[in-house]
């Protein structure tokens, strides 16, 4: 099987930031991404829940790309997280159809 090394980013942010982060990922060289809505969880500020009207909700953005693109994105995110809530994780993955990432 022809597997190629790539970096997967999992970025967890408030809903309002999704558009800005999508643009940033494109500028950083990512060719695609997926956005997922979240239901509930807990973090450093305690438990939270997506409750219909009073919560903007959290979003999980997953993007897979080259190491260079991932480093650019993580540098941007580390600046963003100085002001806004959220977390990001990077992991090494191996992908099929590498030309798509």
């Amino acid at each position, binding site marked *: 099987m022809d597997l190629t090394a790539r970096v997967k980013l999992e970025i967890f942010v*408030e809903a*309002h*930031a999704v*558009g*800005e982060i999508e643009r940033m990922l494109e500028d950083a060289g990512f060719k695609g991404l997926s956005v997922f809505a979240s239901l509930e969880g807990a973090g450093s*500020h*305690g*438990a*939270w*829940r*997506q*409750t*219909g*009207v*009073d919560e*903007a909700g959290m979003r999980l953005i997953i993007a897979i790309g080259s190491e260079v693109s991932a480093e650019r994105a993580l540098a941007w995110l580390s*600046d*963003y997280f*100085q*002001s*806004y*809530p959220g977390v990001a994780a990077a992991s090494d993955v191996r992908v099929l159809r590498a030309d798509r990432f």
Partner: protein
Amino acid sequence: MAGAGAANLLAPAVLFFALGALAGWLKSDLTIPDQVAKTLALYLMLCIGFKGGAEAAASGLSQDLIAAGGLGLGLSFATPFAAYIVLKAFGVLDRLTAAATAAHYGSVSVVTFAAGTEYLRAVEVEFGGYMAAVLALMETPAILAALIIAGARSQKAETRLRPTLWREVFLNGAAVVLIGSFVIGAITGERGMARLDVFVGPLFQGALCLFLLDMGLVASRRLAEAPRLDWRLIAFAIAWPLLSAAAALGASAALGLSLGDATLMAVLAASASYIAAPAAMRIALPKADAGIYLSLSLGVTFPFNLLIGIPLYHAAGRLVFGG
């Protein structure tokens, strides 16, 4: 007054709110799906806006509309400055959380307004349809006031998200539906009202009950999961609406508004936002503690206004207006 207050507590909408709060407190698995709650919120805003627009078209551009609109804008903009001073004096909130909280008490709650209009209809007190436009006008100035209080320099990173912020402030879904429905109601007038009569009329009460069931769940869960709130903040969340309502009633009387309009002005002034303001504050003041301002507006002030405040403001209005 006691009779009207008791009748309010036994109104279906209020009892459904209590049911939701009880279910949330008992940790029932009752939930209103997220998309249903959002759809109900949009439906309620459509009804309020459309009916208000149609009624405003019927009565024409009156002096009362201009007076009520001006008063609403003034109250919404001025309230955060006064609320901020009081909140800072307690010494328990940082500057940004105090500013964000103050914004919530200057902005308004659509559902509290809806409950207020239903209460007035139940006690047969007339009010101007244009109050729906006043509701829309009062959403934004408080948010702008909070940004002034917080100071642009303290939020360097916000610059990057400024387009998102302004879009959220002026073009959030709630504002678009409310103002848009008002305009459509005003354009189509009686003809439009005849076509949508059932949709915006008899069905409204049922949708409000279902929405308040969800609000009861949300409010009780929000309060249970809230950080331990300082007693002074809880006292603020109850006393501030009373002061705001008193100021609104006094100003309404001075401007010559009717009892119904003055009562709704008091309801608006006393209400605290939990949709538009939190969304804007998350973008503009991300360091402010959302657990504080949402718990106060949704967990304390909203139930207080729904259960006690609305009939109280009406009773106070009757005293002021001698009704």
